[in-house]
């Protein structure tokens, strides 16, 4: 414990010159907690529309998009002023979203309507694409040519051609796929299956399942291992996935696809995010209402900080200068 505290102190002392702000969506509170990335103090608790879940940073780092499922819209938060500056009609029950790398298009999973909404940056809806039931995971490929969505109820990953705006492949994965994430080199798509308890690694070109990664933690019942959020380390060599009621985050070697480690975090971790300096992984713990900070290099949980009730997702952005 002492060692841990010491590490924490060192880590905090060494914390980045790149100051960042961390945004955590709190599903039950209808708020977003904003933390200062250096002090981990709460800068502001922003009241949002109802049921905020999916949360991402815009391509230029200036805005945060929040899916407010029960109000059928996106709240757009200004990173500098921490105010909601715009609300976009997202189609029914938005759960998760992603933007392309130029920041021109927003892709939204409409959970209740088995659709993906494709939107211009200004909120103009380009089209809606029918997919499986309860779409959730959403990921734009590094070259912007494909967007992947996962449908929780149907149990598939759907690949959408972003030029033709139509489905090009539907791949069956294990039960209740929650999240899709492109490997940084774009060659694979990693899909977490919450009830299946596994991560599927899909070939980004052929769309088939290349490999299935399973988990085993001493003393934890296998049925409690429920992967949800997933992120890669900044150098692309490690994957981190939050295992839900197993209360751990798994660390996976991307090259060998072997599980290297399990890190104990708070209760029922769901979505996670990497710090901008690539040193930390932030974990939203749904049941303990806090966020755990994992140091990537040591693979240790440094500490947890309280946020709102039922924290769901996390986004990070550079703090304004000065």
């Amino acid at each position, binding site marked *: 414990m002492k060692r841990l505290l010491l590490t924490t102190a060192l880590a905090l002392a060494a914390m980045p010159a790149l100051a960042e702000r961390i945004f955590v969506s709190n599903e039950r509170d209808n708020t977003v907690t904003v933390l200062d990335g250096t002090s981990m103090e709460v800068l502001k608790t922003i009241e949002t529309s109802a049921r905020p879940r999916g949360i991402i940073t815009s391509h230029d780092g200036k805005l945060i998009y929040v899916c407010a499922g029960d109000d059928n819209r996106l709240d757009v938060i200004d990173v500098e002023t921490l105010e909601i500056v715009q609300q976009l009609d997202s*189609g*029914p*029950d938005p759960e998760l979203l992603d933007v392309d790398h130029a920041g021109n298009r927003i892709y939204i999973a409409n*959970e*209740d*309507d*088995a*659709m993906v909404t494709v939107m211009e940056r200004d909120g103009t809806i380009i*089209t*809606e*694409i*029918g*997919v*499986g*039931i*309860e779409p959730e995971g959403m990921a734009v490929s590094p070259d912007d040519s494909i967007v992947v969505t996962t449908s*929780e*109820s*149907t*149990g*598939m990953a*759907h690949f959408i051609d972003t030029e033709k705006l139509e*489905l090009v492949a*539907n791949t*069956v994965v294990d*039960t*209740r796929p929650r999240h899709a994430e492109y490997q940084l080199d774009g060659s694979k798509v990693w899909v977490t299956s919450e*009830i*299946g*308890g596994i991560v599927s690694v899909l070939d980004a070109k052929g769309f088939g399942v290349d490999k299935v990664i399973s988990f085993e933690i001493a003393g934890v*019942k296998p*049925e*409690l291992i*429920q992967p949800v959020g997933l992120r890669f380390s900044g150098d692309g060599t490690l994957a981190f996935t939050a295992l839900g*009621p197993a209360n751990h985050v798994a660390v996976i070697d991307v090259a060998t696809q072997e599980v290297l480690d399990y890190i104990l975090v708070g209760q029922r971790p769901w979505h996670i995010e990497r710090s901008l300096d690539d040193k930390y992984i932030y974990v939203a713990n749904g049941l303990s209402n806090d966020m755990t900070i994992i140091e990537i290099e040591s693979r240790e949980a440094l500490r947890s900080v309280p946020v709102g009730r039922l924290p769901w997702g996390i986004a990070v952005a550079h703090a304004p200068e000065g």
Partner: protein
Amino acid sequence: MIRLALFTLLALAACISRAAARDPDFSLTIHYVSRSYEAPLPLSLLEDPVEDDGLMGARLANEENQLTGRLMNQAFALEEHVVDLDAAFPDSALDAIVGGPRFVVANLEAEDLLALADHPDAADDVILNTRAQDMQLRLSECRANVWHIAPSWQMKADGLAQYLIWKRWESWFVIHGTSADDIAYAEAFARAAEKFGGTIVETREYGFEAGSRRIESGHQQVQTQMPLASREAPEHDVLIVVDTTEAFGDYMIYRNADPRPVVGTHGLSSAAWAKAYEQFGSMSLHSAFEKLAGRRITSADYLNWLAVKTVAEPAIRQKTADVPTIAGLFLAQDFKTPGFKGIGLNFRPWNQQMRQPMLIAWERALVSMSPQEGFLHQRHTLDSLGFDQPESACQLNGDRP
């Protein structure tokens, strides 16, 4: 909203036309079999009796299967056979569904379920029991062609009992009705008391005449009758009311002689589904169901939805409509059906009962989900609910784990 609906229609139409370009890889038909049983009327005049209880759940699952099937080039169908009570059963149902083996979702009472299961024409069928909670169907009267989606009385009683013990509400006064189901459920509470360390201070049978629903100002009579029926019991922590026929359960709440909470079939209850259940993504099931049926989803709807999904899940994944193959998959080590319970649901091999958490809830809120921590089981988290393998007279499927 109209614009949205239009888009959806266009999107679906596009899917259909693409799929129609080639024949589906397989067609899978699920037969829904039920009878026109008379459902007990709710005691309140304001509560509408539900006519299509269960069936709408099966229909919703079928629609979901069809949507998935379009993406996978697989065809799914649901054939509905609701047989009159005065028709010969199961012949009238089986005559309508010649050929086999078949998948049959059986929304049937125990006697009809066994008649169907034991019919020679149904020997190779996969029958999914979505209604009968009788314990003997999981014990001495278990059948190799019957899979239980519905939880047993024992699973429900154990789920509630675990919560009561966790609350340290350990002494229970049981009042049960006179029907066979009432007696079976009351017996299940007695076994649960023994299993988890509760004490039943008294078990009382109560034959209240149903039908007060139609009496105006019935409350005056009820107000005196309920305290009478529940008075002079030994000291207890809770009153367990077991009234499966809706004869008096609702009347007992706030009227029992001692100031003790009412649990059981009324008040705080244990079930596969609850009106107020909103956890683990289940809001999407509520809203999809309401869109289809124009009413709230019931336990029966949920169980029939779950049965149809249980067949389709492995069919979609393994790309097969073959009945014995899918039944084999039910027993696979990694078989998991998602049921909005935060845990994959699978079958106990020894009696083919679906493992599932029980929702401990009242009308407006989920209170807990059982099993409770501390009642964990050495084999499977969910096996502290219901009859465990060592105590089961039913030993199907040999030594499969």
